[in-house]
Each structure stands twice: as C-alpha cells, then as structure tokens.
C-alpha cells in the first residue's frame, strides 16, 4: 500500500474527491430522483383533484351577480351612509344598470340573488326592469319615480341588501350553511327557528356516522377476534366471506338490501310466516335500512385492520396470563384488548371519515329524514342550481373530513395505511 492513513486526514474517494462532499451529492441526487418520480402524480392530482376542489371552495364565498350586472350602482352605493335612502345618483345608476341588464338579459340572475336575502325582491327587480328605460318628466327625480313605481324602493332595508351584495365575495352561503345570518352591522346571528335546517343536517350526519361506526365495531371486533384465532386454513376460507362483499359493487349490495328489507321482502315474509309479526315491518326507506346497509358496506373496513393487528399478537401472552391465575375475561381485557386498541381505533376512525361523506346509500335506502350533508350538496348542484350553497355545505363537510383525516394521519401515519 502506497498510501498510509494519517491521523485527521480527510477521507477521500478513489478519484481524490472528499468523501463527505461526494456522499452529500449522492444523497442529493437520490432525493432529486425520488422527487422526479413523485412529481408526475403530484402534478396530475393537482390538476384533476386539488384545483377542482379549491374552485369549489372558492364558490362558497363567490358573489358575482350584483357586482357584474349592476356595476354603476355597486360602485356608488359603497359610499352610502346606510341610514336614510341612498342619493339620487344611486337611483339613476340603478336605472342605467337595470336598462343595460334588461338588454343583456341578466336581470333574472340579479333578481335570484337578491331574493335570497329578502323574499319578494325577485319580482320587485323584474317589475322595475320591465319598465326600463324611464323617461323622467321635467323636475322629477329618479328616486321619486322609483318609489312611485313601488314603495319598497323607499325602504332602506332593500337598499341594505343591495349594498351588502355589492361586493364580489360574501359570507352569506357559509353563514346560511350554519343556520346563521348577517345582521346589518355585519355580525352573524342565529337565524329564526323556522329557518334553521343545516345544523340539524350536520348533526344527523355525525349521529348516523357515529352509530354506524359503533355497530361496525360491535360486529367487527368479535368476528376479527374469532377469525384471527382460528387455524389458518379455516380462517382463510372464512375470510373470503368477508372479502367477497368488500369487493362487490356498493350498488349491488344496496339493491340486495332493498330486496331483503322491503315491505314484501324476504325478511318480512319470513317473519310473518314464522308468526313472529302480523304486520310487515318498515325496514327499508328509513333509518333502519340505512344503518343496516351502511354497516354492511363499512364492516370490512373494521374487520380487516383488526384482523391483521390480532394476527400479530402471540397467543402465548393470553395463555401466560391465564396460567398465572387470571380469569380468561380479565386476561382478555388486560392483556389482549390493549394491544388491539390502536389498530382497531384507526379502522373505526376511517369508517367514521368515510361515513360522513356518504351519499349513495342514504339516497337509495333512506327517506328524506336520513339524507346527509352530501345529499344536499348534490341537491343544490342538480336541482336548484345554487352553486353558493352547494359549495358552502361542501366546504364545511370537507373541513370536517380533513380535520378527522389529519387526526388519522397523526395517529396512524398515512404511510402506514394498508389494505387488507
């Protein structure tokens, strides 16, 4: 060996470069390669998944109607003192804007938006727009003419609504989704009792999800325990009975549950033939049907993680506890159960997260009383075409889901998620 290792001499690679430098570069290259491999998927999801969702979130505060279609009024009303009626210029601007909107056929959009705040505003706008353009007599003010046409134009409350919506964003939809409304001062207050709806829908969504999760745990845990402690041959065979429904289309299962649960269905006719009941029970198209079908769909999501956790627990622990004098139940509770809690809780949390976004099952197997938040997002999108409400409800649902998912990632680590 021609080279001798002297003390404190920095280590070099074969080509004479410092080893630390070379290693750092190698490490960086490896990182870059990793990022380059992940990048295509990240960009893909950004464009097809994240951007669309952010657009939806944006829609929940978007308020374009008044600003776009009544531009002059929107600009002038900003300097209104909000006490007496707006000035003559504002009325004149309104007349000009409505004339332009009538020509552009955008009156219904403005009318629909303003009607959300005060009912009857739609007809007021439409009626006024029909009379545009106005010819004023000498010395007559536009304000007097408007009030003469309909005395509601002399009511500051109506102008308040226009002023409130003369901004390109609004908290209106988010407030409405929480059964709140904006006071004149701009602070939120609880809507009158008869107008409240969404808090109870959110409550119902969480309530149904909670019970589905509880039922999944009550059925899934014992079954997973039984399967995990059977001989491998037997448990693999029985596991197929868990996996087959898991792999079967949700729609197939919902259709089957309708067959089983409907008034003339198999369960009712069996119970009647056995003489247990005299009248068919109402099992489908109510809460019972929704619970049964949702538990059926989500049960494997508890069984599978619970089973894999239980498989990893050596049976000797329980035996040791029992041989040391513990009652089998005590041994189970003190030794076995604590080892399964983390894995099973993760599965349950996942079930709960999936539940709160459910749409298909309640839509097909529930009455209006079982519809959850997702249903109303779809309803406002498809039926009333109210993007603001659809987006606001969707945003709140998304926030709830993401909070729970964040918790889940913290507890489990998204990278430790496994399937079956």
């Amino acid at each position, binding site marked *: 060996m021609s080279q001798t290792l002297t003390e404190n001499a920095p280590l070099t690679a074969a080509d004479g470069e410092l080893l630390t430098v070379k290693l750092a570069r190698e490490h960086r290259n*490896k*990182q870059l*390669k*990793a*990022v380059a*491999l*992940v990048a295509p*998927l*990240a960009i*893909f*999801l950004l464009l*097809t*998944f994240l*951007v*669309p*969702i952010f*657009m939806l979130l944006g829609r929940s505060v978007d308020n374009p109607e008044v600003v776009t279609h009544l531009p002059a009024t929107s600009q002038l009303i900003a300097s209104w003192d909000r006490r007496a009626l707006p000035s003559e210029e504002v009325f004149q601007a309104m007349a000009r804007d409505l004339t332009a909107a009538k020509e552009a056929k955008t009156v219904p959009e403005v009318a629909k938006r303003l009607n959300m705040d005060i009912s009857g505003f739609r007809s007021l706008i439409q009626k006024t727009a029909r009379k545009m353009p106005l010819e004023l007599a000498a010395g007559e003010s536009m304000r007097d003419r408007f009030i003469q046409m309909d005395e509601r134009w002399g009511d500051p409350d109506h102008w308040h609504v226009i002023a409130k919506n003369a901004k390109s964003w609004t908290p209106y939809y988010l407030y409405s989704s929480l059964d709140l409304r904006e006071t004149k001062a701009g602070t939120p207050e609880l809507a009158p009792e008869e107008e409240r709806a969404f808090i109870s829908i959110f409550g119902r969504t969480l309530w149904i999800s909670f019970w589905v999760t509880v039922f999944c745990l009550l059925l899934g845990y*014992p*079954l997973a325990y*039984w*399967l995990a402690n059977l001989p491998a041959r037997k448990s693999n065979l029985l596991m*197929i*009975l*868990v996996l*087959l*429904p898991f*792999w*079967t*289309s*949700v*729609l*197939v*299962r919902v*259709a*089957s*549950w309708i*067959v089983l649960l409907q008034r003339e269905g198999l369960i009712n*006719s069996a119970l009647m033939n056995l003489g247990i009941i005299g009248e068919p029970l109402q099992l489908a198209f109510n809460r019972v049907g929704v619970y049964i079908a949702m538990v059926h769909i989500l049960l*494997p999501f508890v069984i599978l993680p619970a089973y894999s956790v239980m498989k990893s627990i050596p049976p000797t622990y329980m035996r040791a506890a029992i041989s040391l004098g513990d009652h089998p139940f005590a041994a189970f509770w003190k030794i076995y159960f604590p080892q399964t809690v983390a894995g099973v809780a993760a599965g349950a949390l996942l079930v709960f997260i*999936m539940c709160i*976004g459910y*749409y*298909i099952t309640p839509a*097909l197997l529930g009455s209006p009383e079982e519809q959850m938040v997702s249903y109303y*997002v*779809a309803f406002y*999108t498809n039926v009333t075409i109210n*993007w603001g409400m659809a*987006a606001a409800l*969707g945003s709140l*649902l998304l926030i709830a*889901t*993401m909070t729970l*998912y*964040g918790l889940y*990632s913290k507890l489990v*680590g*998204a*990278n430790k998620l496994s*399937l079956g």
Partner: protein
Amino acid sequence: MLPTYASPIERLWFWSFRIFCVLILIFLVSPLLVIVPLSFSADTFLLYPIKSFSLRWYEEFFGNGVWLTALKNSFIVAPAATLLATTLGTLAAVGLTSSDFPGKSVLMSVLISPMVVPVVIVGVGAYLFFAPLGLSNSYFALILVHTALGVPFVVITVSATLRGFNANLIRASASLGANPITTYRRIVLPLIAPGVISGALFAFATSFDEVVVTLFLAGPEQTTLPRQMFGGIKENISPAIAAAATVLILFSIALLLTLEWLRGRAEKTRTSAA
C-alpha cells in the same frame, strides 16, 4: 377448541360467541346470495318466492342497448383509469420509498386524500372545473377523475410491497454486474409485481364501482354500469338489475380470486427470496 374440562358457563359462552360470529358472516354474504336467484326469475318484480325460472332478464341485459352501452362504457373508463393510476402511482411509490425528502409525509397524505374526500365534493368540483373547458360529458374527464380516485390504492399497496423489499438484492445484482435496467427488470419488478397488480385491481374496482362522479360528470353517452344501476334502483327496480348484479358479483369473485392468488404467490416469492 374447547377443553373437555370446560364448565357449562364456558361452554355456553364458547358456543354463543361462535353463533354470533357465524351470524355476522351470514349477514355479510346474505345480500349476495339473495340477489343471484332473482335474476333467473320470470317475474317482473324482485320478489320471493320465485314462481318460474327464465333467462329473460339476461336477454334484457345482454340484448338491451342501454345496458350494453353502460357495460361498454365501464370497460372503456375503468381500464384506462387503471392503467393511468397504476403507472403514476407505482412511479410515485418508488420515489416515496427510495429516499427521504422534505415534506414527504405531507405529500403522502395529499396523495392518499382522494380516498377520504367525500365523492360528492370531488364530483361537484370536477364538474365546476371541467364544464367550462367543454370537457363535461366526455370520457376524457371521467377517466382523469377516476384515475385520481384510484391512485391512493396503488400508492398504498406498492409502497407496502416496497417496504418489505430487501434493498440488498439490488446491490447484490449490481455487484454481480447487472446494469440498473436489468436489475429493475429481473429483480425488482418480479418482486413488487404482486403489489402493483393488487393496486391495479383496487384502482379498477374503484372506477368500476364509481357512481357519484359519473353522475355529475358524464352525459348520457358515458353512462357506466353502476350509473345505470343507480338510475334503475331509483326509478323502477326490475330483475334486470338482479341480472346486472349477478354479472358484477361474478366479476368481483374473479377479482378476489386473482388477488388471493397473487397474495399466495407473493408470500412464496418472499419466503424463497429470504
């Protein structure tokens, strides 16, 4: 097994626990067992008892343009989405497991998120995004969104397989003179193949069973099989649905058997490699 010296209470507990578990298993499979015979009923209602048998609902399913179009659309969208999701997901999983880089765990959470975001939100968002581009009512947009929904499964299964992968095998291969491509083809790919394929099956099943996004994004021409079933269940539930369901159940049995076979193979390769 119950020891012979078990007390009556232990016996009672043992058997009631068993019966409880068997009942849960019956609960799990009964819906699948119930719907299959109805598809052979000659009746126009989905009701038991079946009075006479016929294949008329299969004729309806395979002879009716609506159902066939739906089946065809499903077989256009699902394979395309699967191919895209498997390619992108496998590359990403290799990247995620090969090295640590800042923000990796956050990125992982984002890549998995399509699995937990409520589908209605994905559907409405996709509609808002694709409609102004003139892409609603197109196969293209539907395939892209179905890909996004399938990606998490591929990332999860492939990452899991890669974590169990012994990196020394790559080094051994390289030290024996194989270049990286040969190593990848002959060593890495055969070992991670079961993970990739099972991820692909999950992605396929996700797209093949997807209704909600299709509801918002697809026009009448892109109606898929689940979408057609959804409409059928909502409007008039006829045994044609049972026929469609039976076809789908056969399909899921095929998927499941493939998956189990892969699992068995993976186990074998792993134990023989170790």
